[in-house]
């Protein structure tokens, strides 16, 4: 009996280590990009987009992964419709010409079992640049309500909007934009 239990425990420990890539589809209720930038060096303007679409593949045992994510730039939401309309214009997000921003990544860095950094290519206004998302939190757990495993966390990155041609309001509204990414993926 004791041996049987030990085998069960061993089996449970070994199970997550099977080197199978697992696909997770983003949960639209817990996958948002929020941005922050300074207004006149005084206070922080915040906004968000409608949920990020896409999927992430994780192979935690092998320490690999890939992500293919996109969001609709026209969905920008600051809490002020007039601001949102202004941000969609050509000298900022240019939403009509470039309806989507994307992040495609294949370089996943793990600290043990924990995802630490995702390096990929970020495209905004048709301009693509390398970008690293750094994990502030990362965890996987079985979610009883879904009867599925959920992996997710909080990621951060910083861009200079002028690099992507979104230059209106400089320098009164800051060039540095901090991206705060909440993401949860449901195992498929």
């Amino acid at each position, binding site marked *: 009996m004791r041996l049987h239990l030990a085998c069960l425990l061993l089996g449970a420990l070994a199970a997550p280590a099977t080197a199978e890539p697992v696909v997770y589809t983003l949960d639209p*209720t*817990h996958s*948002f990009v*929020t941005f922050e930038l*300074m*207004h*006149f*060096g*005084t*206070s*922080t*303007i*915040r906004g*968000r987009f*409608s*949920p990020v679409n896409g999927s992430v593949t994780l192979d935690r045992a092998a320490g690999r992964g890939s992500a293919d994510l996109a969001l609709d730039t026209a969905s920008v*939401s600051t*809490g*002020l419709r*007039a*601001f949102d309309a202004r941000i969609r214009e050509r000298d900022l997000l240019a939403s009509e010409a470039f309806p989507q921003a994307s992040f495609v990544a294949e370089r996943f860095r793990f600290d043990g079992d924990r995802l630490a950094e995702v390096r990929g290519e970020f495209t905004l206004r048709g301009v693509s640049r390398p970008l690293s998302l750094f994990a502030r*939190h990362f*965890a996987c*757990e079985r*979610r009883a309500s879904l009867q599925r495993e*959920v*992996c*997710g*966390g*909080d990621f951060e990155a910083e861009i200079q909007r002028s690099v992507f041609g979104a230059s209106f309001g400089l320098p*009164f509204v800051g060039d540095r934009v901090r991206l*705060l990414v*909440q*993401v*949860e993926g449901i195992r498929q």
Partner: protein
Amino acid sequence: MRRRSGPPVKLRIEGGSSSRRPGTIAEAHRSGARPVRATLSTIIVALAVCAAARAEPQSYAIDPTHTFVTFETAHFGTSTSRGRFERMQGSVQFDRAGKAGRVEISIATASVSTGVPALDSRLRGPEFFDSTAYPSATFIAEGFTFVGDTVTEVAGHLTLLGKTLPLTLKAKNFNCYLSPLLLRETCGGDFEATLQRSRWGMAFGTDIGAPDSVRLLVQVEAIRQ
């Protein structure tokens, strides 16, 4: 010869003989054929009066386009969920020289916005903000702490669900600037606090592991009246 580039800078400093704008101090003095020196002394006196006035509390109106309360809560120990309130109003009395102030902000609880409409409805409901019974949450504070010229902390009381408890906001940024659009002084910053929502009676879910702790991130700017 220096070439001017960009739009003309509208600095409202009057008194130069080239000023053609009617209704200015310079124009008034020109009409009286007074020497420029008198104009300058008038400006100096005016500046001195202004400086003296700065020792008095000044009134500022909250700029609703740059004043938002964002909140953050942990979701299952996995990620951070965020929401904000979109409608608020209020006023600030601020005495930088006297290192004192008073702020009163009223937040429309029904303006909660998370990006998930079904969640917003739930948050407006009786389990959370109960917006029908309690349409507003208020923060009233008179405990301004300064380091030098800068506000570092604002201690006051938050009224939520009809219950009033102390809350201190810590400044992460604080600054005053002359708004080039409004030509008025604007003061503001970023403030943060973490509260336990159950203390205000918003305990839904805390017994089954939903987080009690809520981090508030407050962007505020106020325009001198």
